[in-house]
């Protein structure tokens, strides 16, 4: 029994351990690379979002339309001619009153 206790690791044990460590390192590397890619995409999206927001606020791409004012009962009190400014292909839009309306 004592002899068994003094015995070192078997080759299989060592190889399995090396395999597990390698897989772990590979997993960590893959996840890190993936997260870097996700962060880069997020940064790119954020930059595009900021640009879209700026376009929506400054009105670089405008088209005419109307905005309706309604009372508490939902009846129309009238409309105003406005210029809608779309930020880009995305959804962000703002509007401002058209001059002379």
């Amino acid at each position, binding site marked *: 029994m004592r002899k068994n*206790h*003094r*015995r*070192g*690791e078997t080759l299989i*044990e*060592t190889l*399995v*351990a*090396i*395999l*597990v*460590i390698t*897989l*772990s*390192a590979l*997993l*960590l590397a893959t*996840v*890190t690379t*993936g*997260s870097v890619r*996700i*962060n880069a*995409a*997020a940064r790119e*999206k*954020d930059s595009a*979002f900021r640009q879209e*927001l700026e376009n*929506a*606020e400054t009105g670089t791409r405008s088209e005419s*339309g*109307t*905005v*309706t*004012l*309604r*009372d*508490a009962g*939902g009846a*129309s*009190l*009238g*409309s*105003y001619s*406005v210029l*809608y400014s779309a930020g880009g292909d*995305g*959804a*962000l*839009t*703002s*509007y*401002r*009153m058209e001059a002379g309306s």
Partner: protein
Amino acid sequence: MSVLREKLNSRRGASILLALVFLLLCMMVASVILTSATANAGKITQRRNEQKAYLSVSSAANLLKEAVGSAQYERSETELYYSCWESPYQGSFTDSCEPTQYDTTAGVVSGGAAAQLLRAGADRVFLENCQYSAIHKGFGTTPYTAQFTVEPESGKDLYSVKGKLTMARDGQLTITLRAGSTEAADDYVMTLTFRCAIAQQSNTYTGVNPTEATREDLTHQLTCQHTYTYYDTVSKTDVTSTAVFNTAFTVHTVDLTWNTPVISKGGDSDA
């Protein structure tokens, strides 16, 4: 417990155990990295919704700033005074009229849809500021409030904006706006405060043609005619005759306008 102690003291399989601990550690670190990366990406979607609410409310605020700024309210009251009461003829009248008559026009608003919203509140401010007690009814004890919605065209990616208008007795106007959709997870509230300019003017006309003297909507008769009897000392009999008297006609006009507002973030959450 003894198995664990035995395993800890054992010299066999330590490398696999260490490898498994390393694997566990790697998995924990990986999950933290992955979670933070996906959370960062998810924030963009959340920010888009926040900005949509902000753009909806700020656009409505700018629209109302222009619309209310160009709105005007005007209303007049009139006093018609008959001079027959001032200088009665010798003798006595067989008929008579009230010495003074008071009247008021309907409030006229200009400036589009927003002006229509202001009319009822402006009427109350007029009644607070009018000249003649016969017309004066006062503002009332509570501020005037009204709810409304600013609705963009369908198909535009903007929320409808709900508004609450409050007008004080001095005409000061407070408008609270918020994105009126349940989709707007983060409520964005904005408040516009307009000060009111009240201009008053009085003009008196005496014995002139009504069309020259007054606005078109005032159709008062500017003279009155009375039958009277007196004792004629020459013929020594009672004589009946008629006389025409001029009137004094005063028009008192109140104009309300609202100046450039102060726009601030936040406000009454019940808007």
